[in-house]
């Protein structure tokens, strides 16, 4: 039985404000990431280490090496699978995903991820350009768009859950001093690119006669944080469902192109890892896509002649630029655009009062976990000299967390390909494609100039 509004308006027991700290992937990524870091810290303080559990394949050249590794570490791999199953399973259950379905699918995801991790450590991998993130993506895309992904595998393909957990763990590798030193530059560069890219897409779309809500959704998708930006602003301004689908198709399509294109271009130009990471962070659209590109590029360091800098610098620069520089502003974009939509744009028949609380409600909370992780590790390592840090803290505390982060990222990279179905892309039309693509071109060129010319010295130092 239903009533139409305007008749008696009863009060019903409806959904309460959801307990966000248990109902979003962001918060679960924080609990899992900080839980692992806290456990590692406790073990380290007691003279132990998480490294037994945080097992990772080592370099290998012959099948016999590899077989020996797995024979020796079989129990450790089984324990690691159990750990991830427990942690991600708890999160999945809280998110409403059936636990047994998740666990069954996750076992397969773990096994394939392990195979990709192993492949990346083959001593000929760099020679054949077998960078694990790119291989994971390519394999996933090939399966998803040819034979198809079996439905029973879908519950475990949670790209955002894995990538956010990995980013929180990444905070343990970046000291707070680095964030304070590099954060302002990253924010400045990201602000320039975000404002210009949004402006180009928005005004081009409006000039082409597209609805302003679609223009704003496309603009934030290209300028701020990809699909997440598009759904945040699409909801804030009340975009049509088709507008959201168009934005998703354009963002995902271009993001996947950029995963392959940006590392390839940076490699051809012999950009240092820090510089390339900053460029990818400026010009990729989504965290998961950008991290795949940045990690792939970091893998070239020490293997491809002419590419300088440390391997981790690409991921560090990317994260500073994308997560700190761009992602954290999504709530502000949503609030400002909802204000403009309400007061300046045509009426859709739906009324919504903009509220400043929108900024916090849409804040990507996992960033807090990333920052807390950095603070925690900085405090723990404060009393150590650099030599002691390298000898004790790095191998016993930080390195196991880096291995766990690589696992989480690998789950995500594989899931990107497996969840991207090209045939399900919405028909975007020529005008949205033209407006968005122009923004992509401006974004890539401006990001390149800022990363390799204006702030080049800064990003190069990050990689040393």
């Amino acid at each position, binding site marked *: *039985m*239903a*009533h139409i*509004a*305007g*008749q008696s*308006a009863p*009060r*019903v*027991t*409806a*959904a*309460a404000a*959801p307990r*966000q700290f248990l*109902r*979003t*992937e962001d*918060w679960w990524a924080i609990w899992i990431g900080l839980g692992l870091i806290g456990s590692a810290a406790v073990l380290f303080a007691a003279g132990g280490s998480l490294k037994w559990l945080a097992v990772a394949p080592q370099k290998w050249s012959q099948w016999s090496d590899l077989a020996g590794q797995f024979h020796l570490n079989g129990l450790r791999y089984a324990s690691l699978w159990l750990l991830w199953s427990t942690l991600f399973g708890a999160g999945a259950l809280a*998110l*409403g995903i059936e636990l047994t379905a998740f666990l069954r699918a996750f076992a397969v995801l773990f096994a394939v991820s392990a195979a990709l991790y192993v492949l990346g450590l083959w001593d000929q991998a760099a020679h054949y350009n077998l960078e694990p993130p790119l291989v994971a993506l390519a394999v996933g895309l090939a399966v998803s768009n040819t034979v198809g992904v079996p439905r029973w595998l879908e519950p475990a*393909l*949670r*790209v*955002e859950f894995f990538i956010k957990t990995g980013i929180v763990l990444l905070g343990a590798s970046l000291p707070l001093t680095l964030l304070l030193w590099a954060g302002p530059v990253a924010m400045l560069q990201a602000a320039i690119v975000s404002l210009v890219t949004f402006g180009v897409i928005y005004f081009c779309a409006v000039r082409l006669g597209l609805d302003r809500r679609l223009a704003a959704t496309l603009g934030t998708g290209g300028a701020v944080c*990809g*699909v*997440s*930006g598009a*759904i*945040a602003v*699409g909801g*804030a301004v*009340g975009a049509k*469902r088709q507008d959201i689908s168009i934005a*998703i198709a354009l*963002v*995902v399509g271009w*993001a996947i192109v950029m995963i392959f294109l940006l590392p390839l271009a940076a490699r051809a130009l012999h950009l240092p890892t820090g510089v390339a990471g900053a460029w990818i962070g400026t010009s990729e*659209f*989504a965290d*998961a896509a950008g991290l795949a590109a940045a990690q792939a590029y970091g893998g070239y360091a020490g293997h491809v002649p002419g590419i300088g800098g440390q391997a981790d610098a690409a991921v560090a620069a990317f994260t500073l630029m994308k997560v700190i520089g761009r992602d954290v502003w999504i709530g502000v974009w949503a609030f400002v655009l*909802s204000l403009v939509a309400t007061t300046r744009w045509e009426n*859709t*028949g*739906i*009324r*919504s009062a903009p509220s400043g609380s*929108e900024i916090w*409600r*849409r*804040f*990507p*909370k996992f960033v807090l976990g990333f920052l807390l992780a950095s603070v925690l590790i900085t405090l723990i390592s404060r009393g150590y000299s650099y030599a002691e840090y390298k000898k004790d803290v790095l191998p016993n505390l930080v390195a196991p967390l880096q291995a766990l982060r690589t696992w989480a990222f690998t789950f995500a990279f594989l899931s*990107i390909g497996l*969840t*991207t179905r090209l045939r*399900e*892309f*919405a028909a975007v039309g020529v005008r949205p494609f033209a407006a968005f693509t122009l923004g992509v071109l401006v974004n890539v060129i401006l990001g390149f100039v800022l990363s390799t010319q204006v702030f080049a010295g800064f990003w190069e130092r990050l990689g040393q």
Partner: protein
Amino acid sequence: MSAEPIASCRGCGHFRNAAPLLEAALPNLNSLSSAHAAVRADDGLCAVHDRYVRAVSVCDRLLIVPAQDFLALRDGTPLR
């Protein structure tokens, strides 16, 4: 669960914001984002206007339903 005024999309029978339903309605949403992400807040789809809207929005066509129907609707079950 708590009582709250129905006068917004959050309590409207035309409003759908369950995460699985959104991910099914918006193909490829979960390939680089998620309906479980904090940035989504509690936005959802309006079946009348075919728009993606904030849960605190209002319009002249709010469909008020009893609580048991509301919960079923929110999760995508047809109204009985």
